[in-house]
């Protein structure tokens, strides 16, 4: 499990990548990845290496959304595998996040 973050060249977009299980043990790292971010207008959470996501991860995503401006936020979840997509679907998180269709 690891969390990495990368800012685009123009500073407009922050991409957070989570590999392995996205659960409560990721809490500190995930928070650290966006907490000091004030510039980026767009946040992308890349889940291509995320094998599983539990309900505390959903909570962490809500915290990120809140940090990024709540209803006015622009948070995109990309590259979800089927298990992850299913969990996001049950909670209808597509109403809160921009969930990218698989390529």
């Amino acid at each position, binding site marked *: 499990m690891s969390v990495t973050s990368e800012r685009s060249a123009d500073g407009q977009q922050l991409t957070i990548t989570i590999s392995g299980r996205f659960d409560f043990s990721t809490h500190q790292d995930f928070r650290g990845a966006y907490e000091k971010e004030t510039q980026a207008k767009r946040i992308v959470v890349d889940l291509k290496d995320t094998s599983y996501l539990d*309900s*505390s991860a*959903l*909570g*962490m995503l*809500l*915290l990120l959304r*809140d940090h990024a401006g709540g*209803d006015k936020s622009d948070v995109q979840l990309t590259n979800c595998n089927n*298990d992850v997509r299913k969990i996001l*679907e*049950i*909670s*209808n*998180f597509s*109403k*809160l996040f921009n969930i990218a269709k698989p390529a």
Partner: protein
Amino acid sequence: MLPSTPDRLTVLIADDNVSDRMLLSAIVSRQGHDVLTASNGAEAVSLFERRRPQLVLMDAMMPVMDGFEAARQIKALAGDALVPIIFLTSLTEGEDLARCLDAGGDDFVAKPYNQLVLAAKINAMNRLRVLQETVLHQRDLITRHHKYLLNEQRVAKALFDQIAHSGCLSSTNIRYLQSPYALFNGDLLLAAWSPSGNMHLLLGDFTGHGLPAAVGAMPLAEVFYGMTAKGYGLRETLREMNAKLKRILPVDMFCCAALLSLNFKQQLVEVWNGGLPDGYLLHGDGRPHTPLISSNVPLGVLSAGSFDDNTQVYPFGPGDRVFLLSDGVVDSTGQDGELFGARRLQNVLVSNRNPALLIEEVQWALARFNGQARDDVSMVEVAFTEPDLLGPPSVIYTDSGDCSPLDWSASFEYRAVTLKRFNPLPYLLQLLQEVHGLRSQSGELYIVLSELYSNALEHGVLGLDSALKRDAEGFGLYYQQRGERLDTLEDGFIRIDFNIVPAGDGGRLTVRVQDSGAGFDSDRVLAMPPATNQLSGRGLSLVRQLSDRCQWSDDGRTASVEFAWEGLA
């Protein structure tokens, strides 16, 4: 209290040789420790009992009781605490040295003594002793905290049960499985009767575990019971629960929930699912089950403005059941990390022959799958039942009735914008509850009022045709149209008049409900035989059965019903 780590130890020296004993005492005292001395094993044991030295230097060969036996007895007396015993020995054979350790010794020093080695051994042994002391202290602390926590949970659960079990979970048509400590896993199951005799049921699953989840469950249960008892429908209850949780929960906490309203009289079930795995409507006639899919964001996430309280309505008749479950069921993992999943669950549902065993069969399937039961698995199954077999318990009122109003009338007119959102029935019912003579009929009153109100709204104001509800497909269409027309409603009204007059020792209530719709041919509709096996047409016959008199105006736009009561004993 932290374990004591004195640099100065009390050291017991047991040696039958006086000169050896004095020499050793001098060395150990010089190293800064207090010394106790014994000249044989028995003396050593008794000194240990009285003075509890922290470390023992023990000669092996002594009269009365040798060092081996003394070591065994001292170790037994010391219990869990580590009292290091260092044997003093001139023995050199491996077998003899091993005997020292077998008897409970921790180390040995060879005679003649090397002061440096002796000091180093005492220090090394003391480090072990302190380590053991720390471990024991922490163990005791953990045990104490654990006991404390269990007790807290027990009290909290007892408290919560007072709230959660004030409902009707024990009804014969409900079966459920929940761990006794489900509350601390964030799982919540509530059921209650509405005044009209509908059963409301909620299965919820808070994110997170332990105290936070349990604390969140309290206000949710209160809203659920409070609003159900007052006669609010699912939508209003949902809005209120969502708003309350949104207000009090931290951003990353929410509650996945499914809510049901089971109307046994009209044979309908209304469903809302936000974030729980698919539930199932199991049909008694062998049709494939209907999944009850989560189409909403869980409770406590969205603001009031964007919360979606849209529900689905399905026919629900004899033999039909609804099955709901928490994600602990489908998310159970097998040995190889694979999830139990919806397909395995559906296989169990399909192969189930005896409805009474469904929950057990799911449990067995889970046990076969991963060999161990999870404690956050919640399941509930609620079956159709004839309305007369169950019923809301009568409400007990505590006021005396002396101030009951007995001669009054009131009129209300609800217009389009209000009709879209507002449910006036709980308020109106509460108003009528002020009349004590009506209280024993409040259930009937509520049913008649809601029937007349929904007829006025659906057939009058919205112009819906109940003939649509002929089959399951039309049924869905009917409720879809109802939603669409309500959303776009711009004019129309419903007027409700109450007139209460005293009569002898009792009195009489007349309710008139008028709507702005086109009206209907009341003679023709009322002349039809009461429907028993159809999905529509139960409303009017209910009204006729439950009120003392009822009639419709010639244009079918105004219904008028009467309720009378005798003097109170």
